[in-house]
């Protein structure tokens, strides 16, 4: 494997890993923030919304 090719392969996989992990992290952080905010309002995520007309 020539040095040049290894660089481009590593960069490809690196950029992909950063994009995918970044997306996962962003979604999970968003989820945690939403859960906290909902808990502060006195609602759990698992709670049914029946009768509360939240949706």
């Amino acid at each position, binding site marked *: 494997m020539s040095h040049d090719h290894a660089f481009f392969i590593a960069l490809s996989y690196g950029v992909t890993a950063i994009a995918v992990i970044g997306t996962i992290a962003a*979604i999970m952080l968003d989820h945690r923030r939403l859960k906290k905010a909902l808990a502060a309002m006195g609602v759990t995520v698992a709670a049914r919304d029946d009768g509360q007309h939240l*949706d």
Partner: protein
Amino acid sequence: MLRFANPSFVLRFAARAIPIFGALAALLLAVGLYLVFFVAPADYQQGETVRIMYIHVPAAWLGMFAYMVMASAALGTLVWRHPVADAAQKSAAPLGAMFTFVCLVTGSLWGKPMWGTYWVWDARLTSMLVLLLIYLALIALWNTIEEPQRAAKAAAVMTLVGLVNIPIIKFSVDWWNTLHQPASVFKTSGPAIYGSMLWPLLIMAVGATFLFLALHLMSIRNEILRRRLDRLTRLAASANDMPRTARFEAAQ
């Protein structure tokens, strides 16, 4: 299928499906990466660089798959007017943009050693670039229109207009490409794929699809929760305002 119109059902479904999809994605991608780096042979023409293809092709596939998902959700928004369809639509756009972006970056990094330059106006790459622009415009639309329902309707129609346009763009870009570049320099048809390369590619593609599904469900769940939070905030605000309104009315 109709049960998916119920946000509570979707939340319960997501709670069960996300770990399964996530685990399947992790497993398949791990096996796929092992095959890519330790089993799959180097291409006799492209050499080791062919290993970039194993992420480039799945990313291209998901960039388009995400648009199909988004367009189906757009139909759901327009026909059944349901909030879950809105959430599915909104969630698919950034994910599709991410995969399209990965497709472009890996394609460009593959091109540097192969073509000697990071970017050529190759027909397929150019079509993906236009697809990325459409995703970015839709994301901008979601971010600009404040009322979620209005944004959902506007995005739904634009998504479907884009869906009709994508094959036309593909056709015109192909035409433009043959017009401006001698076809012999850049072969637009991909290299022939043999079995030893096909299996790793298929496993990577299926794994990436499960990754998309897991991320999409997680994102939909966030949107449903965001909507509830918004609703609760409004209810709380209007409850606080009640006495003032009552006083105002009494004063009339």
